[in-house]
């Protein structure tokens, strides 16, 4: 039958493609991510999931303890700091090894940190390294020389000069293979926190160097990214990537040469990329997936409501365990499984970020008219008139904690709880009256002394997610009702929204910020007059001076108190922005299947602590073997 010929041909092709693309054996844990890592080059990492992967496969001088985000030893087994807080000396452990068996030495750190400080690398977090004395000047010098480079110039000579300048000017110094000395340009109590951050990880200098070459036309040190691919990639963390397929999956295998390998639970982890948020949830529902770290679809609010039903039914047991100090997952793990209409495999966790709306604090609007929001009393009035609990309960509906300040409560050890403005409509109206705006003709709207109406408030949001449209509409209604001011909402797609925010073309605009490191300054520096992310145009020399004074404080505990005073000043008096709530991140995982998810708001989830319940614990079986 010749009709069957095309079938046979297709069958042959199918067998061939299936053979080329053979399936991998199942991994011990399966994680679904929405996007693939851009890179496994730690110095060029930038996104949260990428940084998390970086901290899985590399280990820096120190690491964060995911339970409470305190500092624990990494490659450095101990460290000291000078009395002025400027000089840090790290002593590297002698048993730290790369996955190929080489020792991790100070050379690898120097090489990695130099890469981060070369504009050639185009690293997103070069700015963090500028805290090292001489680093910023080195970066600027190299960038200027590269900018002026013309074909025909001597790239080799420029590179030799660059190497020499790094040695002479940048104050990182290795006195031997295991002692690293760093001098900072100012005391930085959170310097160890930075050292735990993936871009500060070492790279295997020999193998990376073999993938670089000088480009004679541009003078740049070019690298081929082949060294980040399995087969070439050498790492020093708990896991080594053995397979990495573009936007498809990554296979991580436990690194047998990792010095602390006995602590690493799962022998292999598959990280699968599924971009469609709905398909992600369906894939989790179909089983075989341990963790979905970023639940996207809008219907997650309904799923979370089912979780609340389950928790409500077991409220007594959960309460008792909570009082005993048990983590929620431990309690839920031993409770009976959910009945129809309930679920326990979804969870909203407080994140290290705050959702807010920015006030435009500039003296004039973009069209030159006087801007009422340049007056702190008006800003306070608008902040006091907002019922945030209602917004969280009826609009965002993810069970977020309402916020009156920017630093998420409980996220930084030793930092006190700072109170901003409460919800108080009477006080809001009083503030507005004090600023000269009151309803003089009983038309329900406020006017100034000359009888001029309050200028229409231009409330800007991005249309990227319905969340912000809903929030903007609810805020509009609250302000109209409580303050008698005209408010119009204006939705723009992300790009135009960002442009308008940067230009200051708004009265009030949607905003949000996630902290980069474990110190309040990652949030408070946003309000500095000169900060690049000060979208509000808030310029207050008094606040800048307060912030400087706090930053100069040598005693860490005292410094945190001073920073808290800065934050109180900002959110009880100045209110350049209106905090709405702490962000939450919604995870899907079944606590009776996966163990090791941490609740700390910085959401440091370390793969080496993940463990399948019921799976034989490798760590213990190894101990038995010994």
């Amino acid at each position, binding site marked *: 039958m*010749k*009709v069957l*010929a*095309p*079938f046979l*041909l*297709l*069958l042959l*092709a*199918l067998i061939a*493609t*299936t053979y*080329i*693309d053979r*399936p*991998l054996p*199942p991994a011990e844990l399966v994680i*679904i991510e929405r996007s693939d890592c*851009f*890179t*496994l*080059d730690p110095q060029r990492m*930038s996104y949260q999931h990428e940084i998390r992967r970086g901290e899985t496969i590399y280990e820096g001088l120190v690491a964060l303890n995911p339970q409470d985000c305190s500092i624990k030893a990494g490659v450095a087994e101990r460290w000291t700091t000078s009395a002025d807080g400027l000089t840090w000396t790290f002593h590297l452990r002698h048993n730290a090894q790369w996955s190929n068996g080489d020792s991790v030495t100070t050379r690898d750190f120097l090489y990695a940190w130099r890469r981060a400080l070369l*504009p*050639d690398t*185009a690293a*997103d977090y070069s700015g963090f390294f500028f805290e090292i004395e001489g680093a910023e000047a080195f970066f600027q010098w190299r*960038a200027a020389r*590269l*900018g002026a480079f013309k074909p025909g110039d001597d790239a080799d000579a420029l590179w030799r000069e660059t190497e020499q300048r790094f040695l002479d000017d940048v104050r990182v110094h290795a006195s031997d293979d295991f002692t690293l000395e760093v001098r900072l340009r100012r005391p930085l109590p959170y310097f160890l926190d930075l050292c735990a951050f993936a871009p500060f990880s070492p790279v295997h200098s020999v193998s990376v160097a073999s993938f670089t070459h000088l*480009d004679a*036309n*541009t003078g*740049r040190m*070019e690298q081929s*990214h082949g060294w*980040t*691919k399995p087969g070439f990639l050498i790492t020093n963390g708990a896991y080594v990537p053995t397979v990495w*397929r*573009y*936007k*498809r*999956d990554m296979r991580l295998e436990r690194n047998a040469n990792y010095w602390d390998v006995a602590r690493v639970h799962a022998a292999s982890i598959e990280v*699968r*990329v*599924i*971009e*469609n948020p*709905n*398909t*992600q949830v*369906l*894939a989790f*529902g*179909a*089983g*075989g997936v341990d963790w979905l770290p970023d639940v996207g679809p809008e219907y997650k609010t309904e799923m979370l409501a089912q979780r609340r039903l389950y928790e409500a039914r077991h409220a007594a047991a959960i309460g008792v365990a909570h009082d005993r100090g048990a983590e929620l997952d431990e309690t839920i793990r031993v409770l009976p499984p959910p009945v129809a209409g309930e679920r326990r495999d979804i969870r909203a966790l407080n994140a290290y970020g705050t959702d807010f709306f920015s006030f435009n604090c500039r003296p004039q609007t973009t069209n030159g008219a006087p801007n009422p929001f340049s007056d702190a009393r008006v800003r306070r009035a608008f902040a006091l008139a907002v019922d945030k609990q209602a917004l969280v309960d009826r609009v965002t509906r993810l069970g977020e904690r309402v916020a009156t300040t920017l630093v998420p409560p409980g996220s930084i050890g030793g930092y006190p709880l700072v109170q901003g403005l409460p919800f108080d409509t009477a006080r809001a109206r009083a503030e507005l009256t004090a600023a000269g705006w009151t309803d003089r003709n009983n038309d329900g709207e406020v006017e100034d002394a000359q009888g001029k109406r309050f200028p229409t408030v231009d409330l800007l949001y991005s249309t990227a997610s319905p969340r912000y449209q809903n929030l903007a509409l609810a805020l509009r209604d609250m302000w109209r009702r409580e303050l008698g001011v005209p408010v119009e909402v204006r939705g723009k797609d*992300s*790009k135009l929204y*960002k442009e308008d925010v940067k230009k200051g073309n708004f009265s009030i605009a949607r905003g949000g910020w996630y902290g980069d490191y474990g110190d309040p300054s990652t949030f408070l520096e946003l309000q500095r007059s000169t900060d690049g992310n000060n979208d509000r145009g808030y310029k207050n020399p008094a606040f800048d001076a307060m912030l400087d004074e706090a930053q100069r404080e040598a005693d860490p505990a005292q410094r945190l108190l001073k920073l808290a005073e800065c934050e109180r000043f900002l959110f009880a008096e100045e209110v350049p922005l209106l905090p709405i709530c702490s962000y939450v991140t919604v995870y899907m995982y079944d606590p009776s299947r996966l163990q090791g998810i941490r609740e700390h708001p910085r959401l440091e989830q370390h793969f080496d602590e993940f463990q399948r319940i019921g799976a034989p614990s490798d760590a213990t079986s190894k101990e038995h073997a010994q």
Partner: protein
Amino acid sequence: MTRMLVSRLLQLPFIVLAVYTVTFLLAWMVPGNPLENPEGRRPPPEIVAAMQKQYHLDDPVAFYFEYLSKASGVAWVMGKSDHPFDLGPSLRQPDWTVNEIIETGAPVSMRLGITAMMIALGIGIFAGVVGGTRPGSLPDVCTQLISIAGISLPSFVIGSALLVLFSVKLRVFPIGGVSGIESLFLPALTLSLPFAAYISRLVRFGMIEQMRSDHARTARAKGLSERQVALRHALKNAFLPVLSYLGPATAVAMTGSFVVEKVFGVPGIGQHFVEAVLAKDITLVMGVVLVYSTLLVLFNLAVDVMYRWVDPRIA
């Protein structure tokens, strides 16, 4: 036959060159700069300028010729490149070469497309024969209705329905990623339906015509049963239009599975290609177009060879 093969293979480079040129012109006209990503990741301006120079983004003519010489293997023959078919680095994903992206994505899309075509052929021929031998009967009306549904319902609707039914409710098939063949069945089924519908209509019309033809009457006169007439004599000729449809259809199934890939989370080349177009990732766009236009020409050639074999009258 040999002459046909040789002449068609000689035409191949020219066809691919024409496709390359047209795609290049279209891709270059798309506004935007692949090195500028609005979602953060802003390298310093001097670095962007250097990268522009390195990739010849400031000089379309140089880009056109350099890319062509590397991709076609000319640069390798002349000793200027390390790889015979170097499709360059992806501009948007600097850590990946276009070759790597195609090597991981293309086998998946091919498996998906091929499986879909096999399903489509099976369903289409069966439905076409059933309908074509008894036009107007209840089975005919049913298959006709289903085939209209297959053509008109968008694949994201069918796909989502199949997903919820078979994967979430019944848990028969896994979702997301590719492991064994079972993980490709649902997406392939979804992808196959429009093709199956079209094939069934081709076969149905062919069968109706063939069953009325002289050679069918002769076969009946020989005393063959209606079933034997249909399967041995009529189907062979009714299948010819399907065969010529099969070449381009397989190519479409292998490349045009963007929506199905999205719905089922299948990591194929389709979605990378669409994203590359949107982000103006020219090297990735050009690379995928080159590979697929070559494949398309080869498929059509294979179909023509088969055609001649099935129906010697053509030669």
